[in-house]
């Protein structure tokens, strides 16, 4: 919408948003652009253009959505106040008649925020909400305001007959006036006068007061029958309820405000809800760090296990991208976790660049070369890498298994999992945790409440909005990763966040934690009072972590340094037991773990690992190229205790039988009862091409196929005979050639199939409609298009004509090209033009449709009939 704040001719400066912006200093403008980065893409040419852009609907919506709850409530109050409104009126709406010190204290700050974001301009005596914001926030029958207030008396009586208004005035006990406007003004004056109003309401019947109390907090609309009961009659007669449509009445804004004691909101929340510590038992910071480190270790083990599971080729990539549900299930079983948790680990490995699709024709997931480097690094570094990737990722594992807007299942590693808010929410949640004293775990609900305050949803509040879900996932995932321990932020988690140890304080600078920063109500030229945090130029209000790569790397390194001493030291030994198990009482050094993984099956994981030796597992080790003596030496070297006899026996037993049978591939063989002939053949140099190998004194195996072998042997001067699979001598003869089974061709009928009745009737309707569009009489601006031809106008003309038609309510004849490139003519009555789309009643299709403006080739007004 290209609405701009035109100078409206009022005397007080500034006269428009553009002028107000012009008066601001550079720092303040920079703050505006930082808060609303969409305004600089592309960079506006001048302040008028900036003001115009700041007033567009999309940009205003974006800005409103990023306000905290109190600032938004302030904006909502301004939307129901006069335009312009003095500061005192706003304060009265926010704090009510009785006043509210907390609100009074917080209001200047909230107003400052609105001013900074160019949503409000003008001095304190003439506060003006940007028009688009006012339209968005002020009440209308379609979009009830969050304040629950109805239209003003002035608005509600706009369409009323003068006689009726005079009746209202008289019934309310006021002298009659000359015209409708002054009558409405008199009513307004009465309704806003607390004392006279109280007197008037004092006379109301009890049921009437009951009705008013039902409507007072909204929605302000009610239904009445054509013949209302006496108490409703009483209210209607005095204008305390005003009709808006047949059968519908509304409580005028002034009356509601009187009944509410002047408050625009039932509840104001001037102070952000604090993040409460959970429960009574809080852990010591040491216990938190230890628990988090234990979990961090488990996280590493799980990711490594996942990668090992996928080492020899991971699951296939679905055609639409991502992992199939079955593969995710299988992975969950392999990792011994629930599916959502498995999805988290898989996504984490992906976000950290450890796995990716291999891009082959038969696409599968596999480990990346990065993974091989990652594997070789110390445990703490590996963790910091994972946690850093998690913190910055926009991919959201929590969505896996849900459905997208088109009701398709969202697959792990698949498309549609990116949520741009994720890193910011993650960071914000952890920052809130960091603001608590070390070792304190928060009550998750209070964290969510705080987040909802900082970024409330417009419209009805839901429990399950995306940000709340993201926050909940963040808390769970942070615990899984070991960023938190027992719900509290660990010291390495704190370092990762870039927050100072042990308690974060700088956080307050970014959130309205401290509404004590006084913005004097009198400053006409709001100057951005807070300097941008040093070293983070261009950071928005919500920088996702330390913004530049260097600071991020430093934070990761710091986290790794703190974590390293808490992780258990890898061991170089195991305990072997006679029940054919081995227990590693802690993490193992990599080479040892790799060998044991092959040699034994893992039975139980955790702080320790329990391995079980079975014939199959020992065979696996032998298959991997180890000999029995290797294995004995390996176990003896790494066992703290003597190797139990049954285990040694098991290895020998399996080794004895290993490789007893040998299997190989040959494509043909030569058999001869006479060893000497075979010796001759092998000795002959010419037989080398046949790649013969002696399997037994009387058998040679060849890599050449039987036909080539026969040829070759004949060339050597022998007379070989071919043998069938059963050992009979084969007699060769040419075989007749046949195709595989085939069906005869089906007859092809001439012309298209005969259409059925439905299709026919639909076609007739379409033809008739098109006929109407092309034959409708129309005005002829300029050259009339030839009959049956689409009208052609320039885009600017099109826009202007359509906009004019919205105002006049006239029907237009348009030429339209649909997505397939098919042109058609339609007769439409435009209702709304917005964001490049025309919403119109389509006479041709007999329904309301939306057309992109760029697809309209031209418009023409219809001739009057």
């Amino acid at each position, binding site marked *: 919408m290209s609405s701009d704040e035109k100078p409206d001719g009022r005397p007080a400066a500034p006269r428009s948003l553009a002028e107000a912006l012009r008066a601001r200093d550079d720092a303040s403008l920079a703050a505006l652009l930082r808060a609303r980065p969409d305004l600089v893409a592309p960079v506006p040419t001048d302040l008028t253009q900036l003001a115009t852009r700041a007033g567009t609907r999309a940009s205003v919506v974006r800005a409103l959505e990023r306000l905290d709850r109190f600032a938004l409530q302030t904006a909502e109050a301004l939307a129901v106040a006069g335009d312009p409104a003095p500061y005192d009126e706003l304060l009265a709406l926010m704090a009510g008649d009785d006043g509210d010190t907390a609100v009074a204290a917080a209001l200047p700050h909230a107003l400052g925020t609105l001013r900074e974001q160019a949503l409000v301009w003008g001095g304190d005596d003439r506060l003006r909400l940007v028009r688009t914001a006012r339209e968005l926030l002020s009440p209308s029958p379609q979009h009830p305001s969050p304040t629950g207030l109805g239209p003003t008396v002035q608005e509600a009586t706009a369409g009323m007959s003068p006689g009726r208004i005079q009746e209202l005035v008289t019934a309310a006990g006021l002298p009659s006036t000359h015209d409708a406007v002054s009558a409405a003004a008199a009513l307004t004056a009465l309704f806003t006068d607390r004392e006279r109003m109280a007197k008037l309401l004092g006379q109301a019947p009890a049921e009437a007061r009951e009705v008013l109390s039902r409507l007072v907090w909204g929605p302000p609309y009610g239904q009445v029958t054509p013949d209302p009961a006496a108490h409703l009659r009483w209210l209607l007669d005095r204008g305390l309820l005003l009709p808006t449509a047949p059968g519908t009445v509304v409580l005028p804004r002034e009356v509601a405000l009187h009944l509410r004691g002047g408050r625009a909101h039932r509840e104001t929340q001037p102070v952000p809800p604090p993040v409460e510590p959970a429960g009574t038992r809080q852990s010591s910071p040491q216990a938190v760090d*230890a628990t988090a480190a234990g*979990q961090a270790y488990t996280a590493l083990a799980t990711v490594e296990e996942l990668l090992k599971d996928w080492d020899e080729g991971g699951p296939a990539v679905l055609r639409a991208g991502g992992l199939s549900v079955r593969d995710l299930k299988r992975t969950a079983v392999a990792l*011994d976790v629930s599916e959502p948790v498995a999805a988290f680990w898989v996504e984490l490995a992906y976000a950290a660049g450890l796995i990716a699709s291999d891009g082959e024709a038969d696409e599968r997931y596999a480990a990346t070369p990065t993974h091989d480097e990652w594997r070789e690094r110390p445990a703490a570094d590996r963790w910091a890498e994972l946690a850093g990737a998690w913190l910055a990722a926009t991919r959201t594992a929590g969505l896996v298994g849900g459905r997208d807007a088109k009701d398709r299942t969202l697959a792990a590693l698949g498309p549609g999992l990116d949520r741009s808010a994720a890193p910011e929410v993650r960071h914000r949640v952890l920052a809130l945790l960091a603001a608590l004293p070390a070792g304190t775990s928060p009550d998750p609900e209070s964290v969510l409440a705080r987040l909802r305050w900082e970024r409330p949803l417009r419209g009805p509040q839901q429990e399950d909005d995306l940000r709340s879900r993201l926050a909940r996932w963040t808390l769970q995932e942070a615990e899984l990763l070991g960023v938190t321990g027992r719900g509290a932020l660990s010291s390495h988690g704190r370092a990762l966040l870039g927050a100072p140890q042990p308690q974060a304080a700088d956080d307050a600078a970014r959130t309205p934690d401290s509404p004590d920063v006084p913005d004097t109500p009198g400053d006409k030229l709001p100057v951005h009072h807070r300097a941008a945090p040093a070293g983070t130029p261009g950071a928005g209000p919500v920088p996702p972590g330390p913004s530049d790569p260097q600071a991020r790397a430093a934070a990761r390194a710091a986290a790794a340094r703190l974590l390293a001493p808490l992780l258990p030291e890898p061991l170089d030994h195991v305990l072997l037991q006679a029940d054919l*198990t081995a227990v590693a*009482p802690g993490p193992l050094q990599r080479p040892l773990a790799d060998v044991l993984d092959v040699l034994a099956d893992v039975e139980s994981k955790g702080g*320790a690992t329990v391995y079980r030796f079975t014939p199959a597992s020992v065979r696996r080790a032998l298959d991997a190229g180890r000999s029995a003596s290797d294995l004995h030496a390996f176990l003896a070297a790494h066992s703290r205790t003597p190797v139990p006899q049954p285990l040694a026996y098991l290895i020998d037993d399996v080794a004895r039988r290993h490789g007893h049978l040998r299997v190989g591939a040959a494509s043909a063989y030569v058999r001869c009862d006479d060893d000497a002939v075979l010796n001759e053949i092998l000795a002959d140099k010419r037989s080398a091409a046949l790649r013969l190998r002696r399997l037994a004194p009387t058998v040679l195996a060849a890599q050449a196929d039987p036909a080539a072998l026969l040829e070759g042997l004949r060339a050597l001067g022998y007379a070989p005979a071919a043998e069938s699979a059963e050992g009979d001598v084969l007699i060769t003869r040419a075989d007749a050639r046949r195709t595989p089974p085939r069906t005869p061709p089906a007859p092809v009928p001439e012309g298209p199939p005969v259409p059925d009745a439905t299709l026919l009737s639909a076609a007739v309707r379409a033809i008739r409609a098109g006929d109407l569009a092309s034959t409708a009489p129309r005005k002829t601006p300029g050259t009339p298009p030839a009959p049956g031809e689409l009208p052609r106008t320039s885009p600017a003309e099109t826009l202007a004509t359509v906009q004019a038609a919205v105002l006049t309510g006239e029907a237009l004849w348009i030429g339209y090209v649909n997505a397939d490139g098919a042109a058609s003519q339609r007769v439409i009555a435009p209702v709304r033009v917005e964001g490049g789309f025309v919403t119109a009643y389509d006479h041709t299709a007999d329904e309301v449709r939306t057309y992109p403006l760029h697809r309209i080739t031209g418009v023409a007004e219809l001739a009057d009939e």
Partner: protein
Amino acid sequence: MNGPLIVQSDKTLLLEVDHEQADDCRRAIAPFAELERAPEHIHTYRVTPLGLWNARAAGHDAEQVVDALVQYSRYPVPHALLVDIAETMDRYGRLTLSKHPAHGLVLTTTDRPVLEEVLRSKRIAPLVGARIDPDTVAVHPSERGQIKQTLLKLGWPAEDLAGYVDGEAHPIALREDGWALRPYQHQAVENFWHGGSGVVVLPCGAGKTLVGAGAMAQAASTTLILVTNTVSARQWKHELVKRTTLTEDEIGEYSGTRKEIRPVTIATYQVLTTRRKGVYPHLELFDSRDWGLIVYDEVHLLPAPVFKFTADLQARRRLGLTATLVREDGRESDVFSLIGPKRFDAPWKEIEAQGYIAPADCVEVRVNLTDSERLAYATAEAEEKYRFCATTATKRKVTEAIVRRFAGQQVLVIGQYIDQLDELGEHLGAPVIKGETSNAQREKLFDAFRQGEISVLVVSKVANFSIDLPEATVAIQVSGTFGSRQEEAQRLGRVLRPKADGHQAHFYSVVARDTIDQDFAAHRQRFLAEQGYAYRIMDADELLAES
């Protein structure tokens, strides 16, 4: 952080036994964790909901459990696991079974939604009566066991405060002349009595009968003893007469041959589960007297119909006795929910260390099949395979060699296949006890064996349980019931009675190499290996060469 305990993610606990705090830790975790495996260095305990609820029933709370884990754990315990433990334990006691003065047995709750939830269950609905008030519902007295079992399966175990009936009093006392209950037997009786009902697990040969006698003396009321077979019944009777003030006349035998009901009655599972025309005519035995105590011998063998009937006996004290609570049918939890939780469990090696059972040398002898046997084995039908390899002729030679080696000692040869046993008996010149041997003949042979008149006895699986052969020092197992773990344990138990001269017992298991016999043997040995019995493996050739 250098404790002896490692908490695994699958809720097993690994205890390093050589650690200096190992004993303290064992005591701390014993109330709630189940000892699963006890090999040489690392013992494995498992934390199950049942174990946690039993701990709650015994008066321990979640904090104690969590503290024990945190205190002794070497690595940080995952917070989620601690939360899970606390939540699981918190589920116990929300529901209570108790006696109401007006309504009889009632189920009450301290948490109304829980009651609502369980009452909505289809399986609970038929067991309860009228709703007395929002928090209380009447329960049919006969369904006390059933409802407890079902609630346990639903995950809301009920605390049973309805108590026990005392039963008909009957004076019984132990006659400790020249012997006394061993400390662990005392402990077992005490734990059982304190808990009300439950299972006592003791190794074979550790004197389970005396625990039963001790419990009877404690109860001093009429007692029903359920045993596996008639021979076992006679031994119980013999032992009770010898060890307690009971006389022959006070003890009745209720079996296929005799149907006596006396203040102390010993019945066999077989007679109880005899079915005639679709009914169990002998089940009324349970109601024939006002029993104050019911003893289930070898509770791991409890047949399904007895399970069902036991569910109806929840008001009477129940004592289960067993050496190995491993049921190949996996119904251990039914035993726990119907008879009662495990009240006492002693690792075999611990009792051995105290000198109450003999140390045993377990040897697996591997024999090779001859070439013709290998071919026969390879071509045999799947169900015949085990028989083919288990009865190889080489086993006979090995058995003879072992018997020769232990000439002059009491040797038992145990097997599964009658043909094989008959042949062995013939070659060894030893009598064979099998299914068709009459009870009188059996007892005569046992007696002769006991007296040392015969030194070698060949027995089939009929003698698996409750035969009492105090002087057997060598057992040779030539074949078994496939991979049954508890059979192996029972057989080892035959030689574990402490020897007069204190020497070692020997247990030989003769196994055919590279066949399913070997696989079954590995499975059979698992229980004992987990109890710390390390099997030695020998080649048959080696053994034959030695002798």
